[in-house]
């Protein structure tokens, strides 16, 4: 049949066949979500539990120990959430950077020609990745707090730097009218001024970094080992220098194996930062827990935290995918 309408009709039918199931699936998913949400609210009402997101506008009423924003208890709960979110990012982002650097070094260490270095890196990897993160975190925190002196007898490792149980205090560049270096100083029972990294922050940062680093080390090692020796030999035969081989042959090939796995580690690290609440670091989970308890809106607070982690994860994955498409070699190895 060569009527011009037949192919158009077939195309339409094909499109319908393709789309109708998808639309039905989407409708079913939305319907299910609606039904679940409706049930939640209905049941909570029946049990006398109040529901709704209006509480986010109420004053928070609680202090938060450390904050990147100006924050006082009279501000709204949503702002407290924001403070918590920034605190999560403030610890997760540096940990990702540090873990990547450290992990790469350890991974290279495991491939080193020196047996001592190789063994040391091996021991580090095996011991850290086989101990639950929460235990490492608590251990690190209590070691930190019991080793350090009290605020009143803080150590001064460098001029303008104070180290004590209240944390690591560094000079800060402050601009109120004129700009100047503000030095930390003892005032009342604590240390005032300067730029402070609390023991809670340090403990979370250190443990997250180390824990992710040993996994990254394995990924880096695996990635490099996946580059077949034949390719390297070929490059040598072409007269490439070792640095050139690394730059143009090994790295591009290895990164293709490394980057997707690295994304997983970054996602894990960010989610693992939720353990911070165990040592009193006011991350998003800690703030949500407090709000949850002060307002009684358990369901809502959990939903918010889940959405925030989802967004953080999607964002990380997106950035990593962009990076991946840029660095990874096309085609098969």
């Amino acid at each position: 049949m060569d009527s011009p309408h037949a192919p158009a009709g077939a195309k339409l039918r094909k499109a319908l066949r393709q789309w109708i199931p998808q639309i039905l699936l989407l409708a079913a998913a939305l319907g299910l979500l609606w039904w679940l949400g409706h049930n939640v609210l209905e049941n909570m009402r029946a049990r006398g539990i109040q529901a709704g997101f209006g509480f986010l506008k109420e004053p928070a009423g609680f202090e938060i120990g450390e904050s990147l924003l100006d924050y006082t208890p009279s501000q709204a709960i949503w702002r407290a959430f924001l403070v918590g979110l920034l605190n999560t990012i403030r610890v997760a982002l540096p940990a990702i950077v540090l873990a990547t650097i450290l992990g790469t070094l350890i991974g290279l260490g495991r491939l080193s020609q020196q047996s001592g270095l190789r063994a040391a890196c091996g021991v580090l990897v095996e011991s850290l990745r086989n101990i639950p993160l929460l235990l490492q975190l608590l251990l690190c925190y209590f070691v930190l707090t019991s080793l350090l002196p009290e605020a009143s007898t803080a150590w001064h490792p460098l001029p303008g730097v104070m180290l004590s149980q209240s944390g690591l205090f560094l000079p800060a560049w402050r601009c109120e009218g004129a700009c100047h270096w503000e030095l930390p100083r003892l005032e009342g029972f604590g240390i005032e001024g300067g730029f402070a990294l609390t023991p809670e922050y340090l403990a979370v940062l250190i443990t997250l970094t180390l824990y992710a680093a040993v996994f990254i080390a394995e990924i880096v090692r695996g990635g490099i080992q996946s580059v077949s020796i034949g390719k390297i030999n070929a490059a040598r035969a072409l007269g490439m220098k070792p640095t050139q081989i690394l730059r143009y042959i090994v790295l591009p090939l290895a990164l293709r194996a490394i980057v997707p796995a690295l994304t997983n580690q970054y996602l894990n690290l960010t989610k693992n930062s939720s353990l911070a609440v165990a040592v009193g670091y006011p991350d998003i989970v800690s703030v949500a827990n407090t709000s949850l308890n002060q307002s009684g809106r358990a369901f809502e607070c959990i939903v918010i935290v889940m959405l925030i982690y989802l967004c953080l994860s999607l964002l990380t994955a997106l950035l990593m995918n962009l990076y991946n498409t840029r660095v990874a070699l096309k085609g098969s190895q």
Partner: protein
Amino acid sequence: MISTSLRRLLPLALALGALTSPAAHAGKTIDAIKQRGSVQCGVSSGVAGFSLPDSQGHWSGLDVDVCRAIAAAVLGDANKVAFVPLNSQQRFSALQSGEVDLLARNTSWTLTRDASLGLSFTGVTYYDGQGFLVPKKLKVTSAKQLKNAEICVQSGTTNEKNLADYFRNLNIKVKPVVFEGFEASFKAFFAGRCQAYTTDISGLAGIRNKEAPKPDDYVILPEVISKEPLSPAVRRGDDEWFAIVRWVPFALIEAEEYGITRANVDSLRASSKDPGIQRLLGTGEDSGKLLGLDRDWAYRAIKAGGNYGEIFSRNVGPDSVLKLPRGLNNLWNKGGILYAPPIR
């Protein structure tokens, strides 16, 4: 018993439960308890004087004794209680989701909790207030000297908010260090991370005596910055169960007023001619029937652990390590504010 880490997921479990299950029926708690043969009682995970397990897993404390008295009244056996340790954050979800039948867990009665969490407070069993514990060597004598101090506090408590209120009013800056777990919070304090620890004064006395490396190195400051009326709580919507949890502690207070003790309860039941005592111990009118219990309910509750005064002195008063004064928790006619409505 589910592990503590799993219980962190309780709010989620509650939410998932609410996703699917139909609304709870009223009046069913007592049936469930009888069928199960034990009362599920939510207590703290270990506050000396209120609820603390020993090395054999045997619980003791004021909150624990309240639960035992209720089990004795309802099931006829004070030992038919399953204690479920809950930290400050988990407690309300555990009650809402039905994991426990009641909370007897140093929990302050506040409007927000009473009106929005789907639970009801049954009546104060301990009048408390929030205070501060500090190391003696800091030579602090008043909370007003805590300028710039770091203060350890547990999250999910009224204490967190009171702390902010109090120092905001005084225009003094302090820094809270907020822990999810009780143990982590006081460990950090005793390690020197904070210059002060804040919670209910009874709780302070508990950690000072039970957890401090040297109790004498720490003092409780004189300021009492809040009202913390500690009360058991039950889920809303089950009036029969609510009434029982409300009236058993009243019976214990009433018993003290009448001078009925664990030691003399049997002889008084056999011989007392006082109509009030007869009513309470089930030899006069049957007060139990009205609560859906038998006539000996209060007798058994008193027999289980003694009257309120006995429970107090054994767990937190002169016969305990805490040695807390009776203060507000004395009977209304002895200078306190404990006042049980008449059992008649």
